[in-house]
């Protein structure tokens, strides 16, 4: 009998516990339809990725502030709940914290691909909708992750654009299909870009003399420079991060490697830091990636105004400097998420948001980067694109394709080539 009473008491206590947990969960739940719409923002704001992560977060915040200034989404204010994924491990813990503890059901981020891969897997596993604003690894959308959407282009298209630029800008100067070498660091990003470059180079009829990888954290690139020198290509297409890119250019210079063109593919190649590290050594180098400075003619008139407003707001809060690509794409992606997905979704549940994202169909020129928006079955925005830029003076200018170009390419060949 005593055992029965104890059993009943335990059952009652358990029931009370479950009920109180349920009440507590309702009280702090994310489905409060009158409060602000809370969106997790996973950008690294400490550690080695902090500079660009913070810039991305600032871009996203401006979009949120502007939407809130217009009355919010469906009459509700939007609030970013920040997480700091400074490494792949913290990306998982921060994504889990936001989705489980903070009850956030919409997460955006993440700037770096390795962080994006880790954070999105954790967030989606916990039932969230994930909106990737600026990471570009092909692996992000090849995983078949539900409720995951990637606003920018895929990394491999960066490499492919490098090969196309050689075909369309360098071949005519040389008078024959260029001989190219592809080099890349041994990260998954480097390998994907390099594969995109090599495949497209072959399709474009270029002669691929080699595809060389090197350790990402190398202290010295002189042996790679010598390998390139021995192969004697006319163009190099390189997929690098930061240190490795700077050391590669320094080593090519020290080894007197003569090239008609050097094509960097994203990473540091288009950033002011590249100029700071190499000084006048950047003149004439190409970079292929997304650009924040496509001409106004490539944008719809209302989008031109939107871009001008964003640029003004950015300059006001960043000492007068113009926004680079990363904050611009973070703004652009966040704007589309709020205006074209969240505002049009039946509810802010991940399922309804996914349905709304799949039905977005914006023509090219509809966003401030000039992109259109249409997601393929894997969740990749097929209307995002890369452009070819060239360092001319203190900044890179768009030179390819002609539709988006603001200047003509110069310094082809990059260095006087020997006849033969």
């Amino acid at each position, binding site marked *: 009998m005593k055992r029965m009473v104890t059993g009943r008491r335990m059952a009652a206590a358990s029931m009370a516990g479950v009920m109180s947990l349920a009440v507590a969960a309702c009280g702090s739940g994310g489905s409060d339809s009158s409060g602000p719409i809370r969106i997790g923002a996973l950008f690294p704001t400490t550690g080695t990725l902090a500079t660009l992560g913070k810039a991305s977060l600032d871009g996203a915040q401006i979009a949120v502030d502007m939407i809130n200034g217009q009355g919010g989404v469906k009459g509700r204010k939007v609030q970013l709940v920040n997480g700091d994924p400074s490494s792949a491990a913290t990306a998982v813990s921060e994504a889990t914290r936001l989705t489980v503890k903070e009850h956030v059901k919409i997460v955006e981020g993440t700037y770096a691909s390795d962080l994006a891969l880790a954070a999105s897997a954790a967030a989606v596993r916990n039932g969230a909708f994930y909106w990737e604003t600026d990471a570009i690894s092909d692996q992000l959308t090849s995983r078949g992750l539900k409720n995951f959407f990637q606003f920018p282009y895929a990394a491999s298209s960066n490499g492919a654009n490098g090969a196309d630029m050689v075909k369309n800008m360098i071949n005519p100067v040389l008078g024959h299909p260029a001989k190219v070498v592809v080099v890349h660091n041994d990260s998954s990003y480097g390998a994907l870009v390099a594969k995109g470059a090599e495949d497209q180079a072959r399709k474009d009829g270029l002669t691929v003399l080699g595809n060389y990888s*090197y350790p990402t954290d*190398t202290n010295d690139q*002189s042996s790679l420079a010598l390998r390139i020198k021995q192969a004697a290509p006319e163009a190099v297409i390189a997929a690098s991060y930061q240190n490795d890119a700077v050391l590669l250019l320094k080593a090519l210079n020290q080894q*007197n490697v003569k090239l008609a063109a050097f094509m960097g593919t994203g990473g540091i190649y288009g950033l002011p830091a590249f100029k*700071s*590290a*190499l000084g006048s050594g950047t003149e004439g180098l190409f970079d292929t990636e997304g650009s924040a400075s496509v001409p106004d003619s490539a944008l719809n008139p209302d989008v031109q105004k939107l871009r001008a407003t964003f640029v003004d707001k950015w300059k006001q809060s960043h000492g007068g400097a113009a926004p680079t690509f990363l904050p611009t794409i973070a703004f652009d992606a966040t704007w589309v998420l709020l205006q074209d997905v969240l505002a049009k979704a039946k509810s802010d549940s991940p399922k309804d948001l996914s349905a709304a994202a799949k039905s977005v169909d914006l023509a090219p020129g509809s966003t401030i980067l000039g992109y259109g928006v249409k997601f393929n079955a894997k969740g990749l925005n097929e209307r995002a694109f890369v452009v070819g830029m060239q360092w001319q003076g203190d900044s890179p200018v768009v030179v390819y394709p002609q539709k988006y170009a603001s200047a003509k390419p110069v310094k082809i060949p990059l260095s006087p080539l020997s006849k033969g």
Partner: protein
Amino acid sequence: MTLLQLVVSGVLLGGLYALIAMGLTLIFGVMRLINFAQGEFITLGMYAAYWFYISLGGNPYLSMVLVVPAALLGGWILERTLFRRMGSAPPAMQMLVTFGLSLALQNAMLLAFGGDYRSASSSFAKRSLHLGGIDVGVGQLVAFAASMAIGVGLIIALRHTRTGRALRAVQENRYAIQLVGVNVERLFAIAFAIGICLAAVAGVLIAPNYFISPTVGGGLVFTGFVVVVLGGLGSLGGAIVGGMIIGIVESLSGFYLPGGLKDSFSLAVFIVVLLLRPAGLFGRRGAEEVGFK
């Protein structure tokens, strides 16, 4: 000719590694302290060269005039204020302090200078010499020559000066030397100050050929640790020879092997050497003991 170019590039790279390793090995040999913050002192040297080059418009190498006394003084003060208090703490605790110092310095530099890359690449250092079919960067050549001069100078000083002999005696037997009335604490401060100074000087010499960012030193010093162990803990000659070996192996493997194997091959050579000579090339058995017993 390619092989010769690779060996020359490797030797020049080895000179850089040797320079980084010498400071580490001196501090370890005398104090039995593994200084994880050594990389940050390299970075500070680089920023000093950058500042001298940009703000004062001077040749980055001339910043040595300020860097050497500042680093000696800084090293001395750090030893007196921080590490002397840790003298009786377990070795792991001492290592944690250097690790904490590394984090603090790295983040202080991020705060002070930002995460952007900088360059102190003077037109002199950027030049490249073409000698008998071999290309050699002037900046690299200067760093190598200075590294060798410093290495040889230090070895001579350790053999032929009174303080140098005392420093070697501490390495041999730190208890016995106290018994004959030598002030060991003073020797620790000297060794630490010289070790920090070597790191900062390495930073100045590397700066014109490299890029500068708050985290750059950490990457360089990792190879420095490998060189120290390969050469034998506490051995300056070992640091020079070890630096050359790693430099040449990295240069050759980077060319002849698939790129991803470059680092693994030099580490494989490192493991083989340690299997044959567990104390390193010039180290003595027991030299690897960390901390005081």
